[in-house]
């Protein structure tokens, strides 16, 4: 059931306009503001999906949009995800920029064929004549005590599909900036919103531009080893780096932000600078985005590596129930254990 959101979901009270001085806002606020600003800036931007209208979405990310922009620009659809995505593709073929919400990660699966066989391929199969500028927002991943089917990390399915862009923000400012850039993109963007970060607050100056889709960012400098993370794993990686610093080890943290396109340049430069790396991701590890990161960075940086790149990922199991999700989620301890394992004796 959808409403596993905390019963007192804070309603994001959007600031009327991005304020010049950084304020502490939640990622939910930032996303809401991004939708609002995009809809103000461009009246071809439309928002639709299940419960995104009067309710404002089960996570309240679309709160107030129907009130401000009317039923025609933010509306509820019948309950059918393939329908939502298929209709969005058609609207995008005819001049609109739909932003659709899949209520939870696992509920995007009915739309898989529309995504893989159409959204991802339409530009190619029309020789560039019919692009599909849609954004598919997916509240995603775990850490929220959700019941089954509400916590899947599904990025690998999308990242493996040529023709899609796949991004995942890790903080409110980037959530705002990446969503604005995703909506402006001429191509379909899978926008993965880490559910567990929706209501965590951080300072965010929404007037500052963020790097484009396709760029990774070093979130913390460090010299001994590099943690590579994205989305919900970024704060954990930062926490691990903080804990390592206490123990005298300097860990660099790279936030991928954009899984496709991938920023080989930033990531490889970071890994070369330390010679050791751990990829941190919540998804099951097998044939995943983390596999790709290990593979491509190793291919490119082999002779700079003092140890094999290691992974801290979810296990290859269905996402666990609330009481056991701590076993599945990358933790500071597991990251530090893995860093300890990076063959420092060869240093």
């Amino acid at each position, binding site marked *: 059931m959808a409403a596993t959101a905390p019963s007192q979901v804070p309603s994001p009270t959007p600031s009327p306009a991005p304020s010049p001085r950084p304020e502490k806002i939640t990622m939910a606020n930032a996303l809401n503001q991004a939708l609002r600003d995009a809809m103000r800036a461009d009246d071809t931007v439309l928002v639709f999906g299940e419960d995104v209208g*009067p309710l404002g979405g089960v996570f309240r990310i679309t709160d107030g949009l129907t009130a401000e922009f009317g039923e025609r620009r933010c509306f509820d659809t019948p309950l059918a995800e393939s329908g939502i995505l298929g209709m969005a593709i058609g609207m995008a073929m005819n001049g609109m920029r739909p932003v659709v919400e899949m209520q939870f990660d696992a509920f995007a699966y*009915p739309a898989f064929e529309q995504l893989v066989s159409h959204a991802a391929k339409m530009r190619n199969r029309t020789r560039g004549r019919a692009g599909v500028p849609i954004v598919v927002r997916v509240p995603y991943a775990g850490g929220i005590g959700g019941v089954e089917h509400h916590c899947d990390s599904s990025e690998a399915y999308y990242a493996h599909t040529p023709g899609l862009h796949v991004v995942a923000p890790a903080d409110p400012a980037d959530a705002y900036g990446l969503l604005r850039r995703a909506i402006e993109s001429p191509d379909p963007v899978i926008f993965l919103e880490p559910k567990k970060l929706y209501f965590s607050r951080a300072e965010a100056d929404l007037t500052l531009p963020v790097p484009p889709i396709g760029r990774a960012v070093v979130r913390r400098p460090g010299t001994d080893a590099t943690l590579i993370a994205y989305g919900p794993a970024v704060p954990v990686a930062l926490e691990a780096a903080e804990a390592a610093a206490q123990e005298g080890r300097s860990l660099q943290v790279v936030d991928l932000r954009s899984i496709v396109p991938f920023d080989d340049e930033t990531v490889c430069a970071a890994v070369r600078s330390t010679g050791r790396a751990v990829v941190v991701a919540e998804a099951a590890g097998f044939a995943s985005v983390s596999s790709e990161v290990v593979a491509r960075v190793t291919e490119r940086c082999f002779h700079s590596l003092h140890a094999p790149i290691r992974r801290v990922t979810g296990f*290859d199991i269905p996402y666990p129930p609330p009481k056991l999700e701590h076993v599945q989620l990358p933790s500071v301890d597991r990251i530090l254990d893995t860093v300890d394992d990076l063959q420092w004796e060869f240093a």
Partner: protein
Amino acid sequence: MVFDWQPAQNPFMTRDAALLLPSTEPVTLIDPDGDPVPVGHDMPDPQALVRAYAALITARRFNDQANALVRQGRLAVYPSSHGQEACQVACVQVLDPGDWLFPTYRDSAAIVARGVDPVRALTLLRGDWHCGYDPHATRVAPQATPLATHLLHAVGVAHAARLRGEPTVAMAVCGDGATSEGDFHEALNFAAVFRTPVVFFVQNNEYAISVPLARQTAAPSLAHKGIGYGVPGARVDGNDVAALLTVLGAAVTRARAGEGPQLVEAHTYRVQPHTNADDPGRYRSADEVTPWLARDPITRLEPYLRGRALLDDEKIAGYAAEAEELAARMRAGLGEDTVADYRDLFAHVYAEPTPQLREQQALVADELSREEAR
């Protein structure tokens, strides 16, 4: 294995439309004041109504207790069927022991009515990783969350039984919202083409979370979807357990007799929030809810039964006590903290864990042993 199966033979596609369309109004047998409605349908057997009454009391108490438990943090989430108990009870009471029930997250009360222990029935909603009961022993499928997907499993289970010559009927339950999913369409169509004994039971409670029925369909009724598959559609008052027993009972009988799948739409209403986490004030007014309270399935049946000397204060007190006992069992069972064992996460992904899973489990074991050592 006994094979006794033929697909639908419709070479000329001339099934009579009149036999497939639902009635213009939902069937009601007992009106909201408890008076019988003079229509051409049989009233269920009095003892069946008394049994249904007892089950309704239990189902209501179950809902109330589950709501309380979720407030106390003993359940992760609870989608209540308060007000829909007539549907919950009737769709189970019409089944034989060998039949199967395919419930959704909203149908915990039906699962309990089927005889599953209430604490076990709430395993998933408590936040555990499995459904808590044995689907084969109970003939209840795990509660389905991905909407409409389980309707196809019902078709498969019923078809397998039919291939073996077993008289099994599958009762496949879903909501109004779920009828919009592609799997609803495919399930009805497969069942119709293979003449599979499934009763598709739609609890139309007018909402899919915040989305009202008018945004879900523009059809005259959801039961009108049946004819598009060659499946007879029926409409019934979802708060009238007598009508439900009659209409669902007839559907089960027809399905068992080899007449193929049946579609029954019950008109009811979700008087409570979608789940405890929902905030219905955002999308509907209290005024809309009020009239439905007067159509409550229990307050309607009670005067009818009393008026026919089938129920008295003493009996009511007895049923209430039984329900109270069930509630006490729920409090006791769900009050206890379960011990979650990480090894369970790896044990049932496959019949045999893969070498990869054994390695991953060993990693956790190692972490834990080091933690303990500290």
